[in-house]
């Protein structure tokens, strides 16, 4: 027992250490972005997070996927209560250490975990079928090839395996509890409405082999969980953590209010008011070096957190008018590209390498994608965790227009018209009232 406790402690702390390193990297990478002030409306933010992330209010817009997701989500939270006992047992070399303290409640808890484990197995199986055998458009878009597709399937496999290990562990435990040899160590504890169906499979095996099955399942289960914890960083599954801060810091303004640029406001003030002091210190700190966004460090921190939080569910692209009509633009891809680019930058930082010459613009997101957006906000409205792909598109358009003067020709003509005669078409401003005389 002594040896296994030491082994457990080592494994546990290594896993937690790696996880902490991953979290630190994420925070460092997010902090590469510009500061943005979202410290306002605290109580509204708590409510929004509670409703959207905790309460999954946007998930149920699609009822089937929403219901399945809620099962997996509640199952995840509930079954993780058991994790506390597993970790304690691991450290102390005990077995079901909490059972004497909880009495009848313990039985209820274990039974609940088991029922949820079964529900999760069912839900995850349906998820897998939906993703792999049904032609649900959002799962088959070009950006979902290779790693994103594998990632989505791996998560489902891992969840299935973990649930089976959990049930096997309980089933063998239950068998051992009833075995005369096991009575002393395997205390009678727990109620096993699901795994008791597996127990008969062990009949006829020796006591020793069932003990080793129990131990193996116990170890694989906890090792699997610790491994999964460290897999998050590489996966869309990071949303199980980031959905919370992500919704908390969401944009709560009307969706039609696009971001305001104080830097431009200062320039405009100078142009409109000749008496203004051109050397006056800027009113906002961390002024951007240039207008708009060409790479991840021009984005703000909420936008970068958005990228790490994205679940790649594709609800945004599914409702995007451009994407629906076969244009290259996919708001999900905008988020995935942003994360990929940020990771690339992060990797170079980790290794102390010199930065490459790539940028988010052109090397990841093409101009064709950016100009296809109708700014309709459908993607923002649809996102179950309040991600705002449109803000990234708009910031990049701003870079294209203000820094590169490279808008499509027709748009340049439109803007010249506005500049010259105050309308997007070549009509004379003096004629604005002509309709009333026609």
């Amino acid at each position, binding site marked *: 027992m002594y040896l296994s406790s030491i082994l457990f402690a080592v494994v546990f702390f290594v896993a937690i250490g790696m996880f902490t390193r991953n979290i630190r990297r994420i925070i460092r990478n997010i902090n590469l972005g510009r500061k943005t002030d979202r410290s306002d409306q605290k109580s509204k933010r708590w409510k929004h997070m509670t409703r959207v992330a905790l309460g999954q209010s946007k998930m149920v817009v699609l009822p089937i996927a929403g219901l399945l997701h809620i099962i997996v989500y509640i199952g995840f939270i509930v079954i993780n209560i058991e994790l506390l006992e597993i970790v304690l047992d691991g450290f102390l070399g005990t077995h079901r250490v909490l059972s004497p303290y909880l009495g009848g409640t313990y039985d209820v808890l274990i039974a609940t975990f088991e029922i949820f484990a079964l529900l999760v197995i069912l839900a995850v199986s349906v998820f897998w079928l939906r993703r792999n055998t049904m032609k649900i458009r959002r799962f088959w878009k070009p950006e979902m090839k290779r790693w994103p597709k594998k990632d989505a399937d791996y998560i489902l496999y891992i969840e299935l395996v973990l649930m089976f290990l959990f049930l096997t562990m309980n089933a063998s435990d239950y068998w051992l509890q009833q075995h005369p040899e096991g009575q002393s160590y395997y205390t009678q504890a727990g109620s096993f409405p699901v795994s008791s169906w597996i127990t008969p499979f062990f009949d006829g095996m020796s006591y020793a082999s069932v003990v080793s099955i129990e131990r193996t399942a116990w170890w694989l289960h906890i090792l699997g969980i610790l491994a999964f914890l460290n897999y998050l960083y590489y996966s869309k599954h990071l949303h199980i953590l980031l959905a919370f801060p992500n919704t908390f810091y969401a944009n709560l303004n009307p969706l039609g209010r696009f971001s305001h640029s104080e830097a431009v406001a200062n320039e*405009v003030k100078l*142009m409109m008011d000749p008496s203004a002091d051109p050397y006056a210190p800027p009113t906002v700190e961390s002024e951007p070096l240039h207008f708009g966004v060409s790479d991840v460090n021009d984005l703000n921190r909420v936008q970068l957190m958005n990228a790490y939080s994205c679940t790649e569910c594709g609800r945004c692209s599914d409702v995007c*008018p451009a994407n629906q009509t076969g244009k290259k633009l996919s708001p999900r891809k905008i988020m995935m590209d942003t994360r990929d680019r940020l990771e690339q930058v992060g990797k170079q930082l980790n290794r102390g390498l010199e930065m490459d010459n790539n940028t988010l613009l052109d090397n990841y997101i093409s101009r064709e994608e950016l*100009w296809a957006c109708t*700014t309709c906000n459908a993607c923002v409205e649809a996102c179950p965790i309040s991600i705002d792909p449109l803000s990234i598109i708009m910031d990049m358009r701003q870079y294209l227009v*203000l820094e590169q003067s490279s*808008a499509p020709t027709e*748009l340049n003509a439109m803007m010249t018209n506005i500049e010259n005669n*105050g309308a997007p078409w070549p009509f004379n401003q003096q004629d604005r009232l002509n309709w009333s005389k026609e």
Partner: protein
Amino acid sequence: MMDNTTNPVQTMAEMTQNGVSPEVLFWVGCAGSFDDRSKKITKAFVELLQRANVSFAVLGPEESCTGDPAKRAGNEFLFQMQASTNIEVLNGYQVKKIVTACPHCFNTLKNEYPQLGGQYEVLHHTQFLHQLIEEGRLNIESKTEYKGKKITFHDPCYLGRANKEYEAPRALIKKLSAELVEMKSCKEKGLCCGAGGAQMFKDAEKGDKEINIERTEQALDTNPEIIAAGCPFCNTMLHDGVTNKGKESKVAVLDIAQLLAQTESL
């Protein structure tokens, strides 16, 4: 009875000169001022304002583009120039309340002018018309020509999702005793007509369909007699879509103001 149709529309400048301050400023917008289809919406709305005896003014030659298409195209600079010029004019006349038939103007004036010093109460014309009816100032009870007719409403992105106004236009359609039929994607899920984000002024990127065709198909799927719009750009896009489908003689695309106004003036 006063003959409304010859009643000239007054500008803010004229009203101020006469020492009158109107209840509301009607922001006509570029489409409403210059585009032939949209001018009909402008006229229909003016007719309703006059019928309800609302004291209103327009800016006329002092009005300039709100800057919406510039901002959506990424030209924050041009947008702020336009906004500052307009705000100077509006504040000069001490305008408090603005109504407009264009959701893009509505959104920009309402949400993006305050940061630049323009604080106004801004209403979309469907909201204002709904208020007028509720207050008993505008009476449309006598209008029976829409009774039982199937009308579907296309949510403009900048009225709906951008500003969460889904009900005012629908309430007006119901007031006409028409049968309101909803499209497959409506309200929060409403599909864009394809004109927003400055797309109106350029060709679409390569794809396998035009957005306005997709949306028109959704509208036609409801078998409507009328497709109601609340935005001059949506109106044009859907009209083009209906024409493209060869349905223009059977299905009319009309602004809600046009539905409420006298039919003979359309």
